[in-house]
């Protein structure tokens, strides 16, 4: 039904374009128009489609809650809890779809009938009201069309409005992220004290398997369950290992590309290295788990070392390889944008090329390079699949790269894979972890971007 209404609106708007244009062309035969005939068409089409569509969208959003209000208004005086009302309403809905298999009560049956009734009324009144608005607004605009109606300006203002709304999508996404994370996190901290989360040393979310609702509200059940220190430590530890691989290789290859490489080498090697950034992370994860992990384990055995098959080293090392191109490309750009006269000055003093790089160019480019490294760190912290597949899922507090550790991202996946129950502290814990991840990466990005920006301004 909804799609039928939608299609009707679209079709009517399209056809009113032709009516508007036709009327304008008729007027044109004896009077001068103030805009091209097609603008009269657009004008009519917008008047036809936009108000009706807006009403249709608003109606569709608010209809369910209004119907719910009417159905449940009979029971609001009985002093039921919100949860019980919700359950009752779900039963009514499934009964009306003939999918209810529980106990039938007279109340339920009456409400289901009422529900179907309301839905019917809502559906048909929606059709009638939306269509009459469409006809009214189209008729109004049609009678308004004359030789000196301004049509181009309103059409362009409307388009500009649509453009503006699109640019709000980014803000809406950010708001959506913050609200969805914050909302669940606040609920989480109502059960688990903030202090226990930030400074607790034990993380066993599996322990928080809730059997019934009364247990969920008992905080003592969760002592020693949601201490995030091992997770935060593991995250930064794996990121550290990754950066130990990525910084030397990325930085040196960036410097070589910028200062030494011939045009041909640059032309071929640069895009090939950048392929590393385009490989999906799940593929890296598979490679780390299948090849690098066992390889390190065997290597450790031959050296007499105890290496876990899911070591932090395997995950961090492969992650480092993934980050190489981010650091090498960015530092390449940064070094290339150092002005030539700095180099010329250094050569004139008799310095060799490497001395110039180390003592003149590198210090000059340092802010930009730091920015690129910070972006790399933020990538490493936010990386998920490599850790999920190659490192352990149990949160050990360790500084031994040969043991397994876990990260924020891996724990979010572990908690949320499969069926989630909203309102369960375990699920909310994942959102709390997500919020901490969001804040850390946001701060890193803002710092990195402002450092790089300042650096660019310096040499432009």
């Amino acid at each position, binding site marked *: 039904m909804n799609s039928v209404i939608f299609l009707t609106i679209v079709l009517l708007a399209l056809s009113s374009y032709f009516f508007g244009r036709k009327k304008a062309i008729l007027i044109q035969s004896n009077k001068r128009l103030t805009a091209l005939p097609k603008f009269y068409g657009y004008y009519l089409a917008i008047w036809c489609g936009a108000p009706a569509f807006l009403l249709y969208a608003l109606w569709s959003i608010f209809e369910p809650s209004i119907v719910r209000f009417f159905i449940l208004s009979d029971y609001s005086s009985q002093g039921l809890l919100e949860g019980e009302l919700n359950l009752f309403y779900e039963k009514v809905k499934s009964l009306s779809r003939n999918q209810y298999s529980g106990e039938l009560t007279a109340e339920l049956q009456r409400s289901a009938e009422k529900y179907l009734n309301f839905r019917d009324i809502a559906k048909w009144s929606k059709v009638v009201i939306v269509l009459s608005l469409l006809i009214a607004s189209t008729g109004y605009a049609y009678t308004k069309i004359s030789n000196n109606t301004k049509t*181009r300006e309103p059409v362009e203002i409307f388009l500009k409005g649509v453009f503006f709304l*699109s640019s709000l999508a*980014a803000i809406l996404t950010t708001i959506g992220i913050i609200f969805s994370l914050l909302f669940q996190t606040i609920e989480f901290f109502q059960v688990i004290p903030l202090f226990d989360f930030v400074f607790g040393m034990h993380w066993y979310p599996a322990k928080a398997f809730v059997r019934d609702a009364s247990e969920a509200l008992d905080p003592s059940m969760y002592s020693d369950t949601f201490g995030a220190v091992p997770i935060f430590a593991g995250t930064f530890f794996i990121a550290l290992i990754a950066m130990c691989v990525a910084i030397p*290789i990325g930085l040196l290859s960036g*410097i070589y590309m910028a200062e030494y490489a011939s045009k041909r080498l640059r032309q071929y090697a640069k895009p090939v290295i950048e392929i*590393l950034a385009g490989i999906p992370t799940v593929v890296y994860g598979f490679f780390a788990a*299948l*090849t690098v992990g066992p390889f390190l384990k065997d290597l450790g055995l031959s050296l007499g070392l105890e290496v876990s098959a899911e070591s932090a080293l395997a995950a961090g090392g492969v992650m480092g390889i993934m980050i190489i191109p981010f650091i090498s490309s960015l530092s390449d750009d940064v070094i290339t944008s150092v002005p030539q006269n700095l180099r010329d000055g250094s050569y004139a003093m008799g310095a*060799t090329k490497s001395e110039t790089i180390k003592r003149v160019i590198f210090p000059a480019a340092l802010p930009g390079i730091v920015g690129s490294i910070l972006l790399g760190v933020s990538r490493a912290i936010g990386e998920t699949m490599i850790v999920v597949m190659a490192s352990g899922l149990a949160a050990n507090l360790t500084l031994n790269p040969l043991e397994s550790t876990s990260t924020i991202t891996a724990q979010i996946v572990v908690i949320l894979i499969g069926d989630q129950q909203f309102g369960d502290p375990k699920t909310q814990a994942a959102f709390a972890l997500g919020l901490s991840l969001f804040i850390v*990466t946001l701060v890193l990005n803002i710092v990195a971007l402002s450092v790089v920006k300042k650096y660019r301004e310096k040499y432009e």
Partner: protein
Amino acid sequence: MNKEERLIKRYKAEKRFQFYGKAAIFMALLFLVVFLTKIFSTGYTAFQKTWLVIPVNYNADLLYLDPDKKPTTEDINDADFYEFGIETFINLDPDASEDQIMELKKMFAFTFERELKYYLLDNPDSFGKTVDVKLTASDDLDQVFKGNYPRDIPENRRRASDYQLKIFDKLNEDGRVISEFNASFFTNADSREAELAGIASSFMGSLFSILVCLSIAFPVALLAAVYLEEFAPKNRFTDFIEVNINNLAAVPSIVFGLLGLGVLLAVFGLPRSTPLVGGITLSLMTLPTIIIAARASLKAVPPSIREAALAMGASRMQTTMHHTVPLALPGTLSGTIIGLAQALGETAPLILIGMVAFVNTIPGTPMDPAASLPVQIYIWAESAERGFVEKVSACIMVLLFFLIFMNLGAQLIRHKFEKKWN
């Protein structure tokens, strides 16, 4: 240290530094080569499938059918092919004990009933005769035949027993083991059995997600970029939008998964595990990438174009829609394709919105539950069976193929259609 020695030392340092640079590039390239070699060498065998060709006697008594009458399609559909299959397998080794019969059965994929039935349906003339029928081998034997399973380890650590290997070798000597192109890898949905699992369901899931993502992200991003470049007043609100876009581009993908879970599923109540939700989540993720690319190409259109149009009496909107946007479209499109390629390889957000469910049907619409290619890689990589390892690598090869294809397409559009302004 005299002057000459110092100079030699400095030149040596120079050489060393250059060597470090070369070594770094070499390491990066070496890793890429090792990585691709590993994937291809483990994956290419998955494109072959092992069949066992065994003599089958479509005897009426064994099928409990009337021997004098040619069976109709319905008769065949109703017949019991399980017992019939077991009887057929016993013919491979008439002296087999009870346990050995079960082992014989396990040499074939569990779909042997269907395969035997469909052969008879396709070849009704073979009723009452003994014919050679091609049956899918179990993944254990498939792996043995491809050489992925060592045979020289003790029996209890092997998936294929000595008895199965004996029968298998005998069949092989008679030329009854054949290897053919594995078409079912591309046409089958996911399965718990490695020899039957295919990528059709996850491919369709990926396709639908990407289409949903494209149809949301491209228009919104293009219009947003046009607004910001051509119409937006220079004020704090515009700056705020810009900062927002830049930050969104660097938010970890898993956070978008939490957004999809917390808003799209929990608040809007959209169906779980579907490419629709996956596509919307991915579109929010690719939005900033496309906006940034579109803005860069709008910026690259020289002001003289706009001034010329304005001078001819075009309005700002006409200038933008008739001149600036068409000129910026190639750059925007190639940015869009690169954004979609990123979205195609994304796994974590899709896992969070439930696209990790086991789906053994091929989805027909974006509203049906599905996996996606990267999620399929994850699911198979977590499976214990050896047969899935080559499947994972093959699936990676398919995914990389599409990524390379998309990136080349983006390059082509950029080189062929983008105007250079000098």
